[in-house]
């Protein structure tokens, strides 16, 4: 040790005291206090801003009434509106699905949400494709992407017929 070489032998306690660097001690103290302050401030942030945001959308069965007007050659737009609790308010949520009668499965029902960037796709009767106006994505009548940016098919929606009424499972 350099200290021992240059000066007279020093008492043990003095050396030990030197090992505790006062500025390091102050830095550690500040870090602990700052950590505590951050945890205290972050707790309400996590509980109010973050945790409620993680709630997933709930699905529900929507009654579309008698679906006898649906044909098997073209998709029809079925609009819905129902109340959804959003935060502290019940607000009407509106949207639509594309539906047609299908000999094999009864009905074929597609979500109107483009699998690319969530615009509404539109059924084009003449060219027999679903078109997305946002980025020119196209889907065939089976919901498969045929051109444009979408790579995933349109989502098929669950449905059932109860008491001659068409019920569609819609997740919001």
């Amino acid at each position, binding site marked *: 040790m350099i200290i021992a070489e240059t000066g007279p032998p020093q008492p043990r306690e003095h050396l030990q005291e030197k090992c505790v660097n006062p500025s390091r001690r102050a830095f550690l103290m500040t870090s602990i206090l700052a950590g505590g302050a951050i945890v205290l401030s972050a707790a309400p942030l996590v509980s109010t801003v973050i945790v409620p*945001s993680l709630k997933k959308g709930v699905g529900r069965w929507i009654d579309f009434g008698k679906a006898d007007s649906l044909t098997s050659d073209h998709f029809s737009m079925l609009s819905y509106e129902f109340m959804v609790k959003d935060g502290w*308010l019940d607000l009407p949520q509106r949207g639509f699905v594309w539906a047609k009668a299908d000999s094999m499965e009864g009905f074929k029902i597609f979500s109107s949400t483009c699998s690319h960037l969530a*615009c509404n796709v539109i059924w084009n009767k003449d060219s027999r494709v679903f078109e997305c106006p946002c980025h020119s994505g196209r889907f065939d009548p089976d919901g498969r992407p045929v051109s444009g*940016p979408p790579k995933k098919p349109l989502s098929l929606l669950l449905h059932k017929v109860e008491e001659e009424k068409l019920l569609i499972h819609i997740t919001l």
Partner: protein
Amino acid sequence: MVEEMTRQRIEPGSKDKALEGLLKRLQGLEIPADAICWRRFFGSMILVLLTLLFLSGVLMAFFYSPVPGTAYDSVDHLQFNLPMGNLLRGVHHYAWNLLLIVMGFHLFRAFILGAYKAPRQLVWISGVSFFLIIPLFIITGDLLPWDQKGYWSTQVRLSIIGSIPVVGDLLVQMFRGGPLTGIVALTRFYILHILLLPGALIFLIAFHLYALVTRGLSGPLSGNGTPRPRAPFFPVIVNRWLLLFIVSAIGLGIMAWRWPAPLGDPADPTDSSFIPRPEWWVLFLNQLVTIFKGPLMIIGSAIIPGGLLVLMTALPFLDRSPERRPWRRKRVMIIAIVIIAVLTVLSVMGYIEHFVRPEH
């Protein structure tokens, strides 16, 4: 060379009152006289536009109701029933569009003249960070009128954010506060737009100006290191800034009166006839998202824009030679020209796709 601004230290025994000292410091501020010319007004112009955005925004907030059912009506009321309400919205609308353009020129000028080089790296980096915050202002602000364009642009933008692997979905949920774009989402966007983002912006402006004051304005390219003649900040700069403010306010006011800010139909998730079109500043990004499909989408939505931002931030450390003359910095210039050319081509492609032949 560091051009220090005047530093008047108040002696401990001074009889000056506290505010007198501050006043003296402000009066003693000087800037190099060569910086006073018409080619160097972009920074002042940005401050003018931000001031106009702040003032018009505060006045609009007095009449805004952040609830999906009434937000549209409150904006409609402001624009069509209040005297000069139309001007407020218009000035706010044109000011942020112009702000993007002026910020582009400001950045371009600093780049061409090598103003980012030592000792001004921090001025450049703090300036580049504005490009992180301003898009957030636009994303959050566009939803507030709750019209078709705002609603559908938000859907598309959130989907783009959601396509980022791992963190995308979480980010979208944090933004919206849940699975819906409804009242919780609108409240979040509102708080971000009028409280948190302006706070961050004011901090950034202060930081940018602090870096500028301590590291100085970049000198003329032909500068030889001799002390430059100086001009007082007050009244020379202050008066010019005020003049710029008045001219800009009148100019934007006339634009707002002549061509009112657009307010579409109320947001309607069931409307199938509405075709959302990307705004001019985001055309290149929109095109990138169209080019990279499916699992590659992250390249267009996150890697390329993020990479550009990292590249811009790192520029002072990548190009470290003291040479500032653009014709002696060929490599940097060529890379920049290629990037600007690609962005321009992408924007033109996007413009043609969405505006020239909008058959879908």
